[in-house]
């Protein structure tokens, strides 16, 4: 290109007076006519009109132009228009520059024609300087895999996997635990329709397993991860279950085993066997042998015979995917011993209440005793006050808890159980306000406590006595005898340090995954092609989780449904011959786009992964040797523009 003679066409637009009323367009044209390389310099009434565009195309052909500048309105409006025009004329569209002489010049300086004209000349000169140094660029075309990896088999992961597979994409669903469903199957019934959590999961799973383009890996974890948007390479390790047959075949035999381990599915309310299948309908239907807790392998071998295979080894699967959805979910907040009376007999958390109700088939009993009065204490593990810097507290509101507690208390009240609600603010937002209305209308008693004076829970006979100061009744000290205290616990993000490290996605101050931008890109992470869904991003209820899962699936589909993704060519590029490997660019890059690469004959130097580079240019500013530059806006171009614009203007 550098050998070629520069032949530049410059078009200065009147914009029907919008520019020419305040800028002497003729003078601008005169002033730049003599600039080196300028072959055509014209003023046009409306550059964006069809006739003017055709005029540009004709000039390119007639005068053999190889660079074009249009000086008119803001590039936001017509830069793309003229790039298209130039392309139609047979030129590379990036050999074009758009000078803004309307919004930046004529309209801003309606008070001084002379000054505006001078400024317009500077802007056009800078544009000419830019194109003089411009090189043809091609958009980066990246082949993408038509496959998506979904990490997490809760409802978010299931929903996302189902949505993607329906469009024909291949989906790999990886779940760390041995069974799909996440936290949802532990829920007794969920608002607003009162469906059982397990049924919601069952519906999604049964649809999903029908599909032949979905692979589900349970008891599996991500072991390695590399690549970039469109092309990720992932290794998944599937841990052995040690059991080979479906649950139904060995159901009776499992029953003979002793209860040994607190059942995490029931939050420790019950015990489970070393071979377990958490709940009816769990997928897959094959139980798991919990070898870590198994003290007597021989008995099991004897009892189950061929159904058990202790020789099973972890398997590793290699996947190639175009996008990744992370949906690792949450854990319920576990109150500290003594926090709101936790640890006392009769004090349970909301998730435990769900399990109690489910185990009792809807009837609420604790240790065989009938429950008449239940107190819900809200904001346990949420909206906590920070007392010192080191302390890890949950300052956030967990969003779903008021609604959830309200719904389950309406179920309790249907059974004639009295409910008390010890709250800080009732946040039944949106239509959930109806549940609050219903519960209070039916006789639920609401008492507001001050965060500094939390309720105290004492024992009184075989009942519990809850003592609280009620802000709604002029600070009256109240005593409430109840059978059960339910701590309405919030959500904390599921801890997955290894995964975070592998994927290099970051967490916010609240320890949930952080999106790039809560409004513009609410399901995207800073790493292109990795998306987040559900409660790993923020506390959410089922409905909102499903929405965010579909939204993340949508983003993953925009990447993977196409054969190639076209990325703007404005990416950083390293000249390995100059690079002194200061690594400053690597440190500053927010997208992890710069790596060290061994160049043949040169050795280890920095290298930009263009699929990851977003083109911000932060690396350009820190490079000590100017080895790294931005395509489409090189340092040379910037200097040329500065020089051209800084030259004195003589009108």
């Amino acid at each position, binding site marked *: 290109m550098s050998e070629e003679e520069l032949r530049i066409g410059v078009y200065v637009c009147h914009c029907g007076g919008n520019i020419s009323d305040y800028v002497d367009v003729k003078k601008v044209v005169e002033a730049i006519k003599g600039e080196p390389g300028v072959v055509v310099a014209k003023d046009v009434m409306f550059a964006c009109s069809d006739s003017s565009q055709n005029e540009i195309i004709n000039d390119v052909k007639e005068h053999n132009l190889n660079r074009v500048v249009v000086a008119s309105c803001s590039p*936001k409006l017509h830069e793309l228009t003229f790039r298209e025009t130039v392309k139609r004329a047979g030129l590379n569209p990036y050999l074009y520059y758009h000078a803004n002489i309307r919004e930046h010049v004529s309209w*801003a300086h309606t008070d001084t024609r002379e000054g505006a004209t001078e400024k317009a000349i500077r802007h056009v000169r800078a544009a000419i300087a830019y194109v003089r140094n411009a090189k043809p660029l091609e958009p980066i075309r990246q082949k993408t895999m038509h496959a998506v990896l979904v990490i997490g088999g809760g409802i978010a992961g299931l929903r996302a996997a189902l949505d993607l597979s329906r469009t024909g994409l291949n989906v790999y669903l990886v779940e760390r635990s041995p069974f799909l469903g996440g936290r949802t199957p532990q829920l007794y019934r969920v608002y607003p329709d009162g469906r059982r959590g397990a049924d919601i999961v069952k519906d999604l799973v049964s649809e999903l397993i029908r599909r032949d383009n979905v692979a589900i890996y349970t008891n599996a974890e991500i072991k390695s991860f590399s690549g970039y948007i469109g092309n990720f390479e992932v290794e998944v390790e599937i841990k052995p279950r040690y059991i080979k047959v479906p649950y139904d075949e060995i159901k009776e035999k499992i029953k003979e085993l002793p209860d040994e381990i607190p059942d995490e599915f029931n939050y420790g309310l019950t015990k489970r066997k070393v071979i377990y299948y958490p709940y009816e309908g769990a997928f897959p239907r094959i139980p798991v042998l919990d070898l870590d807790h198994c003290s007597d392998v021989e008995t099991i071998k004897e009892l189950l015979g061929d159904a058990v295979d202790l020789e099973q080894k972890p398997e590793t699967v290699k996947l190639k995917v175009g996008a990744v959805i992370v949906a690792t979910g949450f854990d319920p907040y576990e109150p500290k011993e003594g926090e709101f009376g936790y640890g006392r007999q009769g004090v349970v958390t909301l998730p435990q209440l769900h399990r109690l109700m489910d185990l009792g088939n809807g009837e609420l009993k604790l240790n065989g005793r009938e429950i008449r009065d239940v107190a819900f204490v809200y904001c346990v593990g949420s909206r906590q006050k920070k007392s010192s810097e080191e302390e890890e507290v949950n300052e956030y509101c967990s969003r779903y808890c008021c609604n959830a507690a309200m719904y389950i208390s309406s179920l309790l009240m249907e059974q004639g159980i009295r409910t008390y609600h010890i709250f800080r603010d009732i946040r039944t937002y949106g239509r959930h306000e109806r549940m609050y209305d219903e519960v209070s209308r039916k006789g639920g008693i609401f008492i507001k406590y001050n965060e500094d004076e939390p309720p105290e829970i004492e024992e009184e006979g075989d009942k519990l006595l809850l003592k609280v100061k009620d802000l709604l009744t002029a600070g009256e000290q109240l005593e409430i005898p109840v059978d059960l205290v339910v701590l309405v616990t919030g959500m904390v993000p599921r801890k997955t340090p290894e995964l975070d490290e592998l994927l290099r996605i970051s967490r916010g101050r609240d320890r949930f995954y952080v999106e790039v931008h809560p409004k513009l890109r609410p399901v995207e992470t800073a790493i292109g092609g990795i998306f987040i869904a559900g409660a790993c991003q923020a506390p959410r209820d089922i409905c909102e989780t499903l929405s965010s899962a579909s939204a993340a699936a949508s983003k993953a589909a925009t990447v993977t449904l196409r054969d190639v993704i076209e990325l703007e060519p404005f990416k950083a590029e390293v000249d390995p011959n100059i690079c002194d490997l200061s690594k400053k660019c690597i440190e500053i890059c927010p997208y992890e786009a710069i790596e060290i690469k061994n160049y043949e004959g040169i050795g280890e130097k920095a290298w930009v992964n263009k699929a990851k580079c977003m083109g911000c240019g932060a690396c350009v500013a820190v490079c000590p040797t100017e080895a790294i530059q931005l395509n489409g806006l090189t340092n040379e171009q910037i200097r040329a523009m500065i020089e051209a614009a800084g030259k004195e203007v003589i009108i």
Partner: protein
Amino acid sequence: MNEGGSEPLILVFSTNTISDPGIDFTGLMHLHYPTRTVIVRLPCSSMVRPQFVLYALTHGFDGVFIAADGPDCPYLAAACVDITSQRMAEAQNLLKENGIKPERLAMAGICSVCAEPFVRSIKAFYDRIKDLGKVEIGEV
């Protein structure tokens, strides 16, 4: 207007998605500011190489104004402010080393509809540069 360059000349670095539209908006509102301001747009204010500032101040410009995105930056979000400020500090040191007053460089966050704030800051900066006079190497 232009009498042998007694008036200062300012280079404004704007950013494609936020502050350049903000300066567009200033025009849309027909708000006036000094004409001796040339606007060069970049993707992000963090791209301003300290050497560019020095280059501008030795090639006809008397001041450099960075219209940054602030925390609205689509690339770096809140980190943009910190990163750009670091570059600013480096640039100011570089200016000092080269005998140029570091006050000739300024930055402000300009949102995409921040017409008034832009006019306010660019006018203030212009006046400041005017008081400093034309660039002279060795002025510090």
